[in-house]
């Protein structure tokens, strides 16, 4: 299965040396494997490898997080220990958003959104660790209770 999905062309080092340009061009579209003794070395587009690594990394996080929390949203997580500070409702929302962002990233090969999502949730959890900060955000002010900042003149 893995070999089929990889769908590489296998050549030997002499062939690569003879038609270097051709094989490098080809490797941009699909992997080219050079037989090297008993093993093989692949030439693969860097973006493809980057995506595969990101996919593996986040899949591992997601699976571990699922294993740790199971059906209990209140269970502690060593993958995302900061989720412990979130209220239960926010924990559920984090879980939903994380799953959705992961699926979207796999489909689009864009991992930035998922990375930012995790940063955002971590920052939010840090707010919940600081009662003074929570109180500041929870306090409702009327617009006239705000103080306008006068730009400093240099």
């Amino acid at each position, binding site marked *: 299965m893995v070999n089929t999905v990889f769908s590489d062309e296998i050549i030997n080092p002499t062939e690569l040396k003879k038609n270097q340009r051709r094989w490098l061009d080809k490797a941009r579209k699909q992997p080219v494997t050079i037989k090297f003794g008993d093993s093989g070395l692949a030439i693969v587009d860097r973006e493809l490898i980057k995506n595969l690594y990101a996919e593996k990394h986040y899949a591992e996080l997601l699976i571990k997080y699922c294993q740790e929390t199971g059906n209990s949203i209140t269970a502690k997580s060593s993958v995302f220990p900061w989720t412990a500070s979130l*209220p239960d409702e926010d924990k559920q929302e984090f879980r939903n958003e994380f799953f959705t962002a992961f699926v979207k990233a796999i489909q689009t090969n864009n991992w930035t959104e998922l990375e930012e999502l995790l940063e955002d949730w971590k920052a939010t959890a840090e707010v919940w660790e600081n009662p003074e900060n929570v109180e*500041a955000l929870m*306090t409702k002010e009327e617009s006239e209770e705000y103080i306008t*900042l006068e730009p400093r003149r240099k």
Partner: protein
Amino acid sequence: MSPEENRDIYEIRFSRRAEKGWKTLEENIPEATEKCLHFLMFTPLDRLASGGKIKKMKGTFSKFLQYDVTDNARIQYWVDKDCRIVYVKYAGPHP
């Protein structure tokens, strides 16, 4: 500042609590607060322009954005885009 720049500028308003925190930050880290102020005045919603300093708060606090002034200081605010006003709710230390 040119009149053209002035037209696009955001007004910045602080809650009383945030203003106190902001003044402390200004005294201790003037350069970083100046940079933060510039960001709030011109591009308070632009994550890319912030160079990784902005976070979007989530869940209960989803209305707010956070700007990391330094590793140890941050502000949280929300933006009224139509009126071009930035409301700073918290300015203070990072735990």
